[in-house]
């Protein structure tokens, strides 16, 4: 009990245990490696499965195997490793299997570097693998959320039987903050209706994603689409000082942390700034954002560590209801609080 000082990546493993996670499969990559280190230490001690896979292709297919068995399974990785997992994620979504994938995003493209970026946005939020499917994507902005979103993530994964992505970044993964431990361990879901467990009860079950009949496969696609539409009910966002704001940052993860500091500083100098922080990137809390965007005179500033990938989502969600500007850094750089203040002041037409 109590409050402890914990690193973001470690908090993901702690959260997974409170979620009731049965198995971890992963391959090392900075800045996500501590997830594997901590899982290697804790999972076997609690009788849970830990395997260091030979590559991320194996990691995600082990996750697929464990998920097919109806178990709570996860992996963690970053950029290049996440790219290798995309085929597997398409198979998981198509077979309607639950899992949680933690992406501690580093700078790309290519090998890039190990600094923070948010450039896996399109890959994780829009798809990444082949076919019509979506991941449910949660965006933690603190060590506490790295832990809590694992529990939320497994709940969503099993409720919708779909992969869930925890889209973090190198800062959130590497930073240490106080963590309040969860009070309970989530009870195991009943998966016997669909899982293949090597038991008499589940003998008739099959996990597959090949459907030769065009009609049958189209029906699966439509069923997935309906599921994703239903998931809109789980969209969530945090508003920080948006009630009377004229200029509102839209940001998630580490960007939202910097933007929040900028909001407080801007308020001190008389600019009515606010922050809209999505906690779910898919489903995107578009309606809540729209309510802000449609206010007269509103200006939105999208602050992201990628080249407008997230801005495009905001444009689409708000349908150009108000001017939207972009503040972006890449390559491992962060924008500063001062950069964010300047962007907001420019957007608000208040260039001193």
């Amino acid at each position, binding site marked *: 009990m109590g*409050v402890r000082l914990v690193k973001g990546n470690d908090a993901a493993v702690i959260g997974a245990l409170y979620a009731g996670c049965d198995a971890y*499969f992963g391959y090392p990559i900075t800045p996500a490696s501590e997830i594997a280190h901590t899982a290697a230490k804790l999972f076997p001690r609690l009788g849970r499965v830990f395997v260091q896979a030979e590559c991320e292709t194996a990691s995600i297919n082990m996750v697929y195997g*464990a998920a097919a068995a109806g178990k709570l399974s996860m992996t963690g990785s970053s950029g290049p490793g996440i790219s290798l997992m995309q085929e597997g994620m398409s198979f998981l979504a198509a077979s309607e299997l639950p899992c949680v994938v933690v992406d501690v995003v580093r700078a790309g493209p290519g090998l890039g570097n190990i600094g923070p970026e948010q450039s896996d946005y399109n890959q994780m939020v829009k798809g990444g693998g082949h076919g019509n499917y979506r991941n449910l994507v949660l965006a933690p902005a603190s060590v506490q959320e790295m832990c809590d979103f694992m529990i939320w993530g497994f709940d969503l994964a099993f409720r919708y039987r779909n992969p869930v992505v925890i889209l973090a970044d190198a800062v959130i993964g590497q930073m240490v903050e106080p963590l309040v431990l969860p009070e309970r361990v989530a009870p195991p879901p009943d998966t016997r209706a669909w899982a293949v467990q090597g038991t008499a009860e589940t003998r008739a079950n099959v996990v597959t994603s090949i459907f030769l009949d065009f009609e049958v496969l189209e029906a699966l696609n439509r069923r997935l689409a309906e599921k994703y539409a239903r998931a809109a009910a789980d969209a969530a966002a945090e508003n920080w000082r948006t009630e009377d704001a004229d200029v509102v940052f839209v940001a998630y993860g580490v960007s939202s942390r910097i933007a929040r500091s900028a909001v407080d500083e801007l308020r001190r100098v008389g600019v009515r700034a606010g922050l809209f922080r999505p906690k779910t990137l898919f489903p995107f809390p578009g309606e809540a954002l729209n309510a802000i965007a449609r206010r007269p005179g509103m200006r939105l500033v999208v602050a992201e560590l990628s080249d407008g990938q997230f801005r495009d989502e905001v444009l689409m969600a708000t349908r150009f209801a108000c001017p939207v500007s972009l503040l972006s850094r890449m390559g491992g750089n962060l924008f500063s609080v001062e950069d964010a203040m300047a962007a907001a002041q420019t957007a608000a037409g208040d260039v001193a």
Partner: protein
Amino acid sequence: MSTHPQSQRRLHAKGFYDEFPRKGGTASRATHYCAGCGHGLLHKLIAEAMHDFGLQDRAILISPVGCAVFGYYYFDCGNVQAAHGRAPAVGAALARCLPEAVVLSYQGDGDLGSIGLNQTLQAANRGERMAVFFVNNAVYGMTGGQMAPTTLAGQKTVTTPNGRDVETTGHPLHLCELINTLPAPVYIERCLLTTPANIQKARRAVRKAMEIQRDRRGYAFVEFLSPCPTNLHLSPLDAAKFVDEEMAREFPPGCLRDRTAEVAARPAPPPLEPLTPADIEAVLDKCVAVPAPPGLDPDFGTIRIKMAGFGGQGVLSYGMMVAGAGLADGRHVSWFPSYGPEQRGGTANCSAVISGSAIGSPVLSHLQVLVAFNQPALDRFARDVEADGLILYDSCLAEKPTTTTARALGVPASRLAIEAGLPKAANTAMLAALACSGACRVASERFSDMLAQTFAGKPALIAANRRVFAAATEWCQANLRPE
């Protein structure tokens, strides 16, 4: 796929479903395999063994990508279909998550020996608890007869129209022999799906692999040289002859390894109980912990501290102690390290923030405090310290900075640590200096309390560090004038 309704063969055996509704179509008891294909025959041998050993409730068959992708149409057991080449990874997870289950991986030569070779070898090398049934038909069947890793030298396929040229396309891969270089597998055998005598041998091999799984003895690998009349463009008889003569010459049949008698049958471990919070807390690292989350005190403001030095000087744990002291004093805190190769390059730095309210970015540009453990740290970060900020530096390893208006205090931390008998504890001396400076607005004893937390695993070090802390405190009180 090479599915010709007129050539569909009726297939029923113990271990199969009575009818095959998953297949759809009209011929509800016929398979999708071509006449003369080895897959149907091997299916039958596996299903029969599974049935005879009473394993249908325990068995999970993994269908590959290839002609056998629809294994689950037929096998009356649990069924999982896997991505191309990934059956070993899927099977490894099934075996580890389901101690009672019998895992059967069924794969073709493209699936197992080409796209999935790494997974194949790694699973074999880990000795995963599964039986691998490997169909070597020397071609890619499902996609229309392209070259496989096992295609024979000179063999014509649609991607080796002039015959396989081993100079440019490599030599036929010998999977059994490759696997036989690894210590973990229990059983490795190569069989032929051709004459009745060969089929009897194949049947025995299937049953052996199945028994190994029944008894949870480990990894079994059985290769089947198998005719593919459709893609070899041969009659079923001639295709079987090709296997018996050409393929068997390249891939000699026989048992390469049988350690069944040497490895014990292993009982399954008891099923796991769900975890309780107490179970989890018991395995978590000891770390700085306080009873309640920090409260709100905006008047306290925010203090940004950077510590930097060589790797090995304890810079990162210093930062954790600073953050821990702040938390223990009821403040919001964050800590952020330099990480990755930078750390290995010999320098280390980290940032700590102590605040009266929720912390924005944990990554710092403007500093109120810099703690420099060496000259490069001072050179790099002194310019980031605000004009009214504080720089503490180890005066044994760095010169007083001249290019900043911030207050710079030299502390002979390395010397104080040596004199107190713990040369590696210069960081503890610097911690005492930071505590004495009052720059963090955190009670001094919170810092010394951190020593006990940090060295909880090595009790002997607690007292020694306390001595360094006390000596440095004494030095600071005598030599550093309060602001």
